[in-house]
């Protein structure tokens, strides 16, 4: 593994995931979240928010590199879409057990798929190993 490129890809993924999250969930969906104030904190706990995004970006980058060791925007974006779908599943489950609105559910699912597809594309564009891989596993 090329650790320098891995680290650059991880930083790129982290910045994108965080900024997209702020714009999509924190700004665009703000009104939808305010319809159910009991389900949200009045002020986000930024320490947990940042730490969560670091963990998410680090292991997502690792997954992209394992999945598409040769790098490449499209292969990693395809993985990002599938990862977005894995995480959309818990949103559907949350909708069944938490009093979320369909607007929130739709926003979270679409957001997850777009967010991870683009994050995957970013990782694929940045991470390119110096020598060709011998195995995908």
């Amino acid at each position, binding site marked *: 593994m090329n650790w320098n490129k891995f680290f650059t890809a991880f930083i790129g993924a982290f910045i994108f995931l965080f900024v997209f*999250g702020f714009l999509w*969930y924190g700004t665009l969906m703000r009104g939808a979240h305010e319809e159910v104030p*009991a*389900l*949200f*904190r009045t002020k*986000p*706990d*930024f*320490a*947990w*928010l940042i*730490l*969560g*995004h*670091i*963990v*998410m*970006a*680090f*292991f*997502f980058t*690792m*997954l992209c590199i*394992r*999945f*598409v060791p040769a790098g490449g925007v499209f292969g990693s974006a*395809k*993985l990002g879409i*599938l*990862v977005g*779908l*894995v*995480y*959309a*599943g*818990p*949103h*559907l*489950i949350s*909708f*069944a*057990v*938490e*009093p979320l609105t369909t607007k929130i559910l739709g926003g979270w699912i679409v957001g997850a798929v777009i967010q991870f597809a683009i994050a995957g594309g970013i990782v694929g564009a940045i991470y390119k190993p110096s020598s060709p891989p011998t195995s*995908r*596993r």
Partner: protein
Amino acid sequence: MKRFILAFIAAYVFLFFWGWLLNGIVLKDIYAETPNLWRPQSEMMSLFHWIIIGQALIVFAFVMIYASGFAGGGVMAGIRLGVLLEIAAIGMRMGFYAVQPFPGKLIVYGSISGLIEMIIVGAIVGAIYKPASARTP
């Protein structure tokens, strides 16, 4: 295709019973501490199909990722995929904890059980799904 469907069904059955055991029995008392965050029982039951669809989506996307990038690695490759996906999901859970007033212990227990769950899902998928080339002599 047959192996894909078999892997999907086996992993789904496990996920369904694990979810029921964990959320319906083990963590029941913790959920009861924050009734304002959850739908009433009758409402949850009327939306139960979303839980089934959500779990099916998680397993479907998991098997798709395994089949496209990890297949052939067997049980260990499945476990590796499960671990990477779940640790990234723990990051996402931290993000939810930052904005939603969930009890901290729910996040901790949910993350530990999620890791065990995805390790077992990965092992099931890795044991059952074999790419066509690996099966043809």
